[in-house]
């Protein structure tokens, strides 16, 4: 045992001492790109871009620990982001007296209590077999009870929510500082992640992708159609900032302060993840990712560790979603799109380097700059094609602008396939130490 440790310790130190040339070059290029954007588009616009890129970096860190550390693919980042945004909205928007001043909160609470009671009754019914009821009869009783109670509770809920909508508009917020909403958003996302992970993580990895894709659409449908809770398509704005807003300090300065706040959050997350990655826990997670069977043979509780890391990733996504939602100062459930909030984050992670936190942050900022800049570029190219086409005598469709933006879908798809094919480890690959 002793000489074995002695034999691989020196190699460790040589790996650690490598000059990070690749990192330095890539980040220098990124800095040049950011400065270029500042020169071209002005300070206010560029600072907004940087803040959004920073929010996306939090999301990407969440995805990189799921995909890079543990090999779990989450195809529903959008849902967790939307939950975070919703929670930020709910906690920070001012209190709505038209709702809280009436008997409606009591009514709503009563219905929710009934709902809880119904759940307890149904769970109780599923335990009936312990009192000697045959299993088939128990299942039948439980299913019928569940259906009937569900119908009763849902009709009561529909009544109350309709009343809230017509009399008070929506429930309004709690008027608390936004960071409370961010934390609760992370907790909500973590709760949903626990539910999904608990069901899917013991099965084939594909099932997790399918289930997360589904839950994201469901969360979006819920937020979009629950007008009493979120005002649905009418959107809620403005959301207060935790830092001084643009009306007090002007756009550039206020955004710069917000940027430093997000930078602090990222730094804290980065530090904690770095510690976790190099801790025994991180090694265990990677061991499970690389060889499940041998990790299980070593006595590691695979499903529990997987659930841990999946929930952790979802919490980060909820937090990032909250920060992003507050910065946009607008809660619009329809603004959450799979392309912008799931696949863009995926590209950031696989391009930057899954499992490498620094690479992920690099990927987040770089891809976001490309994404933002591609909008004017796509319009320009489309305009160019249009003028060329008109001179050649084509008749052009009228909605050219919206079609030009659709081209970005194509580019994101192409990026995913090309990166998977030619650079499966990303630009900054995970730094795996070789232990002899």
């Amino acid at each position, binding site marked *: 045992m002793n000489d074995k440790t002695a034999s691989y310790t020196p190699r460790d130190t040589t790996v650690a001492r490598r000059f990070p040339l690749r990192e330095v070059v890539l980040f220098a290029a990124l800095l040049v790109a950011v400065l270029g954007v500042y020169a071209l588009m002005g300070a206010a616009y560029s600072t907004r871009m940087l803040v959004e890129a920073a929010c996306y970096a939090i999301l990407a860190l969440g995805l990189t620990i799921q995909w890079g550390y543990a090999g779990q693919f989450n*195809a529903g980042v959008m849902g967790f982001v939307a939950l975070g945004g919703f929670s930020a909205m709910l906690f920070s928007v001012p209190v709505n007296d038209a709702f809280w001043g009436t008997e409606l909160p009591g009514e709503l609470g009563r219905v929710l209590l009934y709902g809880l009671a119904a759940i307890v009754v149904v769970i109780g019914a599923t335990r009936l077999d312990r009192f000697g009821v045959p299993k088939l009869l128990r299942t039948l009783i439980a299913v019928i009870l569940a259906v009937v109670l*569900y119908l009763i509770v849902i009709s009561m809920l529909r009544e109350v929510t309709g009343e809230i909508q017509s009399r008070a508009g929506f429930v309004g917020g709690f008027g608390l500082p936004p960071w409370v909403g961010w934390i609760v958003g992370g907790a909500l996302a973590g709760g949903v992640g626990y539910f999904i992970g608990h069901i899917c993580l013991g099965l084939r990895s594909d099932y997790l992708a*399918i289930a997360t894709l*589904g839950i994201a659409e*469901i969360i979006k449908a819920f937020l979009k159609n629950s007008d009493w809770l979120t005002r649905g398509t009418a959107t809620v704005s403005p959301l207060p900032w935790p830092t001084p807003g643009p009306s007090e300090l002007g756009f550039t300065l206020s955004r710069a302060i917000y940027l430093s706040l997000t930078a602090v959050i990222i730094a804290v997350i980065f530090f904690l993840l770095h510690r976790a990655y190099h801790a025994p826990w991180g090694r265990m997670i990677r061991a499970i990712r690389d060889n499940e069977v041998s990790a299980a043979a070593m006595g590691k509780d695979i499903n529990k560790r997987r659930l841990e890391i999946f929930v952790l990733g979802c919490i980060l996504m909820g937090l990032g979603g909250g920060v992003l939602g507050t910065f946009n100062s607008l809660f619009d459930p329809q603004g959450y799109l799979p392309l912008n909030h799931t696949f863009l984050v995926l590209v950031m992670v696989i391009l930057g380097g899954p499992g490498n936190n620094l690479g992920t942050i690099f990927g987040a900022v770089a891809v976001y700059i490309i994404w933002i800049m591609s909008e004017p570029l796509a319009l320009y190219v489309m305009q160019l094609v249009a003028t060329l086409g008109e001179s050649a005598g084509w008749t052009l469709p009228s909605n050219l602008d919206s*079609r030009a933006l659709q081209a970005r879908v194509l580019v*994101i798809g192409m990026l995913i396939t090309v990166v*998977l*094919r030619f650079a499966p480890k990303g630009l900054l690959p995970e730094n795996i130490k070789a232990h002899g």
Partner: protein
Amino acid sequence: MNELVFFINNVVIAGSVTGSIYAIGAIGVTLIFSIMRFAHFAHADMMTFGAFMVLLLTTAFPAAGTAIGVPTALIMLPLAMVLTALLAVGIDKAFYKPLRAFGVKPIVMVIGSLGVTLMLQGLIRLFAGTGGQSLYVGDRKEIFRLGLPFEGARAPIVVTEPQLYLFVITIACVVALALFLNRSRLGKAMRAMSDNPELAQASGINTNTIVAVTWVIAGGLAAIAGTLLSLDVTFKPDLSFFLLLPIFAAAIVGGVGHPYGAIAGGFVVGFAETLAVFNWNVLLRPFQESFPAWLELPSNLAFVGTEYKIVVPFFILVAILVWRPTGLFKGKVI
């Protein structure tokens, strides 16, 4: 009686329509799953692509159907199937084959197929715009109203022309697939490969051919499903995101890698969807007098609103993953 007719129109017919479409889609997904061992997320976009090909061909030759008396879109369907099958084989050659050659994990193939999804979606939207378009370009959608020979049944049963074609084509597809898998040499080879790829290869089956054939079948079926769906409603470039979850739920309910299970799963999911959004108050209202006075039924007794339809396949998926992850018919791949 009118209530019963309403039930037939809104549940039996609507459920069979969505069920057939999900079933045809799920067969493709489950075949790909059993041969290549990954969840093919781009399947719903291949369906959209097939429908889009039909739309293009129908717009190009709007009068082709009137000569025989069927909608032009149906005449163009075989051509669109060939095009979609070619696309599927091409996608496999360009994107999935290199990944397979690297020997990547199945989940990486899933991400690759998501990339392909986005590319297809981008292409379709680039050329088709974002609005909906009817596949009935030159001809008119026939609607049949069948009156019932009963006392008091005033409302007729309503079936549209594309729905009738849909039932016929679904049955034809299922029969053809069953014959192919059970009788033909290629079909048997396919089943062998899905059971044990190494053994199949060792016994002289050309796995490359099998993979290509799988893509041809999956592409053809995807084109059929997409076209029938667009005939029934309208063609929209963003059909796919609403199809993906029900189709995967259907494939998993039936047991992954199990074509007949996929058909059953498709109908389970389709009927569950229509039953869940159906307003049960309609059926209970005639018996209102026989209920006790304190029991007043609310006017809306649907389980979920139509806007939450997507919850239904998800719920089925979760239920099946919790209680019977192998699916109803004991699929092989877990």
